[in-house]
């Protein structure tokens, strides 16, 4: 164990917080797995405590996160497999910090707020393992380590969908698993190729992300293929059109907690992967092929929204809306301006909050009515006005109404993308019309009108449910009104990434009337 623990961090009194953030839920998962089935309340308590403790660690992390620097903070690097240059290298920067915090907060809420109805013990164990995997993916700065965590995530998710999902759960779980594995296979090849090709420039084999990115020096021709290998894995995960059809099935069949986590943080493994690995390692290739990704992103925005409009299942509708929202994030990612990319990172969080809340609400509807069929629901606002009010707020945030979180991200993405990808942005902006259409239409059918016999007994929001939703509402309103604290933390890392890529940041202030005035 010397390599992991017997190092200067602990001896020097510096707490290895990132390692702890991964290990706490991991140990929690093992503890839950080995505990006796006869005391379910202890099992649940263990799960809640370990996820809450992890959440507390991430909040502490955020509180001590330094603003105004692009460096990786709290990094810890320990040699692991020296011969292959693999190390336990963790770090957090402006791109990952809020994803880590979102993960840390989303899991306890999902664990507390959703009842699996059967086999709680394995359910909780899988959820905690999933949390460890997601945290590891966001914190890894080593390609091998990242790949391991990226793959680990699949296993608990597969079992969660397959074990606690709905009628077509096995089909959905299998599809999810195979589809993502298909993408990962490309990435594995890509990682190995990257490492070996980089050996020429670096002189030794290393899986270290920072070292590869700074010294890799990939030629444009090879860089393109390597980039594509990574990009396929991330595009499946995002998901980018036309690789998205696993998502509606996985979402619809997944238990509520699974959907919340899937939409909230797992899809971001794709968009995060593009920023952290794809663009960071192969900036030239990313720039040369950006037209492909911009186009697929814009198609996804319109296509996802149109498909969402026509869904008959409320959960499927929200799933398709994710395709549209993630399209915005990819658009901003490949715009290479500080506004658009900062907006993308911000929007990853916003989408996680808003869509996570939407899935919770849809789950609550299902708990009461045992259906998600839009046609079977009617007039809920009359019998449950508070529930409807919360739904309205979350819906408006998803539509992107200013003053709420969704707008800030969307606006930054669009205004920044307009600078470098004008016509793509113009088409993408029309997606805001469609977003209003599909959500308001669904809302009208579900909440408006006179409730019929089946819907008359729909119960109002309960206290426990309100408490679970409260953090979401707070985040929605706060981010919408005062996003500056988040922007201040995200922006330096984005600017550094843009500089690293050698891109001309069109949004950094070279234009403007001031400059033009100087010209005669």
């Amino acid at each position, binding site marked *: 164990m010397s390599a992991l623990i017997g190092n200067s961090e602990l001896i020097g009194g510096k707490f290895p917080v990132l390692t702890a953030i991964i290990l706490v839920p991991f140990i929690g998962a093992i503890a839950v797995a080995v505990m006796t089935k006869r005391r379910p309340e202890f099992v649940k308590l263990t799960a809640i405590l370990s996820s809450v403790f992890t959440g507390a660690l991430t909040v502490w992390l955020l509180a001590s996160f330094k603003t105004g620097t692009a460096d990786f903070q709290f990094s810890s690097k320990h040699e692991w497999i020296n011969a292959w240059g693999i190390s336990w290298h963790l770090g957090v920067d402006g791109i990952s910090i809020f994803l880590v915090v979102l993960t840390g907060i989303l899991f306890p809420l999902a664990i507390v707020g959703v009842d699996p109805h059967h086999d709680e013990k394995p359910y909780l164990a899988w959820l905690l393992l999933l949390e460890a995997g997601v945290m590891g993916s966001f914190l890894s700065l080593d390609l091998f380590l990242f790949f391991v965590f990226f793959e680990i995530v699949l296993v608990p998710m597969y079992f969660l969908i397959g074990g606690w999902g709905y009628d077509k759960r096995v089909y959905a779980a299998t599809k999810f698993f195979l589809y993502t594995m298909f993408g990962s296979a490309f990435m594995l090849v890509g990682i190995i190729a990257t490492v070996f090709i980089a050996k020429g420039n670096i002189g030794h084999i290393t899986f270290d992300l920072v070292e590869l990115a700074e010294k890799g020096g990939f030629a444009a021709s090879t860089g393109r293929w390597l980039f594509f290998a990574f990009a396929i894995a991330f595009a499946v995960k995002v998901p980018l059109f036309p690789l998205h059809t696993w998502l509606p099935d996985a979402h619809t069949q997944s238990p509520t907690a699974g959907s919340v986590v899937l939409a909230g943080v797992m899809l971001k493994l794709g968009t995060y992967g593009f920023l952290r690995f794809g663009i960071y390692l192969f900036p030239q290739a990313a720039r040369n092929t950006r037209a492909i990704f911009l186009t697929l992103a814009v198609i996804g925005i319109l296509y996802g929204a149109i498909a969402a409009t026509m869904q008959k299942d409320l959960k499927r509708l929200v799933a398709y809306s994710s395709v549209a929202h993630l399209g915005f994030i990819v658009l901003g990612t490949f715009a290479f301006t500080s506004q658009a990319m900062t907006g993308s990172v911000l929007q990853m969080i916003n989408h996680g909050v808003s869509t996570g809340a939407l899935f919770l609400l849809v789950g609550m509807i299902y708990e009461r009515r045992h259906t998600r069929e839009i046609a079977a629901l009617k007039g809920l606002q009359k019998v449950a006005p508070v529930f409807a009010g919360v739904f309205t707020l979350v819906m408006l945030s998803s539509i992107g109404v200013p003053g709420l979180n969704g707008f800030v991200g969307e606006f*930054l993405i669009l205004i920044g993308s307009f600078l470098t990808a004008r016509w793509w942005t113009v088409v993408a902006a029309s997606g*805001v019309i469609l977003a209003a259409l599909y959500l308001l239409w669904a809302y009208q059918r579900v909440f408006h009108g006179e409730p019929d016999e089946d819907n008359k007994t729909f119960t109002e929001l309960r206290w426990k449910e309100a408490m679970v939703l409260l953090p979401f509402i707070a985040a929605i309103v706060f981010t919408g009104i005062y996003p500056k604290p988040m922007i201040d933390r995200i922006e330096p890392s984005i600017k550094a990434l843009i500089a690293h890529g050698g891109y001309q940041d069109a949004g950094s202030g070279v234009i403007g009337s001031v400059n033009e005035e100087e010209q005669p």
Partner: protein
Amino acid sequence: MLDAVWLIPALPLAGFLIILVLGRKLGEPKSGYLATLMTAGAFVVTVAVFIDLMSKSSEERHHLKTLFSWIPVGSLHVDVAFLVDPLSITMALFITGIGSLIYLYSIGYMHGDPKFSKFFLYLNLFVFSMLMLVLGSNLLVTFLGWEGVGTCSYLLISFWHTKDANASAGKKAFVTNRVGDFGFMIAMFVAFQFIGSLDYSSINHAAEAKTVTGTVATVIVLMLFVGACGKSAQLPLYIWLPDAMAGPTPVSALIHAATMVTSGVFLMTRISPLIGYATPWVSTLIAIVGVATALFAATIAVAQNDIKKVLAYSTVSQLGYMFLAIGSHAYVAAIFHMITHAFFKALLFLGSGSVIHGMHDEQDMRYMGALRKMMPITAATFIVGWLAIAGVPPFAGFWSKDEILLYAFDKSPILWALGLVTALLTAYYMTRQVIMVFYGKARWNDERPHAADASATEHHDIHPHESPWTMYTPLIVLAGLAIVGGGLNLPFNHTTERLSSWLAPVVEVGERSLQHGTEDIKWVLAGVATLGALVGVFVAYLVYSKQRLKAIEPTTLANGWYYDKGISDFMGGPGRDGFEGVAWFDANVIDGAVNGTGKGVQAIAGVIRKGQSGLVRTYAALIGVGVVLLLAWFFIRGVAQ
């Protein structure tokens, strides 16, 4: 005092928050009074700011109050900041002033509604958003208010959401407005790329100093005009406004007549230097859209039987006048008409609400008549409103409409002629309405062959009655304003043109100066316009009172030239089919390919390796175990080193 400008939106916001938390406890009527007090308080603050602003010289009437940095990334700096100048304070004055009156009225109108508190909750949020819209110092703060009022409009139109028509109308309003908002957003993107800022001062300065190309100015103005067409219900995006009448009548008065729908006119005035700098055809286009909308909506209003629908189309038509003014570079006239219109149209809507209230929710004018005896105050004030909108001197509407027509004439006599026809039609349909509602025979208990739904055909005795004081007090105040409102800007000399000199610092760059020829005949034009109005009144009198002429109410006009129907048929037909097609494509082609690949692989694998179990679940478990084992191995290796 100017720094206290933030209090103006803050008070309605505070009202919103208090009712949000305590609404149920406060109940009726306390939450109504609280909301009214908050908006009245905002009015008082606005007056104080106004007085302070007046005391300064006209060059100094420009004050920026920054609250905090909202969205700062790279060279993009957007603050939550307020711009205090004659334009914003003028807007704030009549929003809070008329707003307070309509709040007071609502206490009476919403009496007994189970969602009484919620109504005032939304109303407060609306006034807050509207104030953000007009006070914002940059496009994005305005956009915050812009979307905010749209959202409140949605919530209030579908306020009685158990009825499907109301719910659909709310959705339609929101989605149609979003089409306009798309234009607004593009305008912001262009402004940021080429001007580098979203601040009004920077944008207007860029136009005045000519630091951007005319093309950029043209694109920004055009895109903002698209937004204005949505919010201010101009062709081709007006379709949501007539349906919006599904909301409670005070909402129609406040949001869909006096304030929100004028946002587009405000926005155009705000960027008037940019309009002046843009290619000339842009302003011509605005004028044409304006006058076309004015005429088009007026023809539809002629054949409506719903008391509120007449007023709704009339609002669309009057907004068209304001855009005619904008297109003619007559910004003062546009704002002038906006204010007088707010007076008399709010009055007419509230009056119609009083009628509906007294008639137990009857809205069909064919079953009204002779109401002046039962509702004397409502009738008297409504008649004032009628004279004002018809353009009869010396009522408010005459002065403002006349000023618009004058500038339109200066731009092109054709625009003027179309505006004049509209004025004649306006006088005609408003006279028709007054006669049908307040004069003639009482038709309250007639058989109702036209009634759409069964509940209305129930034959019960209707006993119309006058409304309570909370309802008729605002009517009296607004009637007074509709009489004297023209005094704001009388065209006699420079001292009587108060609004012109007050707004001068904001609009002087773009404002049109009349040609001498036009200036000379301005009283002739006014005379012709007055004559037109009187002809309209007289013809309607012959048709509907004396029955000397046959009424011309073709179904084409009653159905609004089938424009709305055409759009909804398209949306429900080919549009929907197209969407269904995409969904089908996704489920069958794209997902079909995925599943097909899966099945193909399975089939091949099945042939080649019969020994495999074929259960993917097993594969998955094996992969999972494999990953764990692999990890363990690496871990042990790592430890060993």
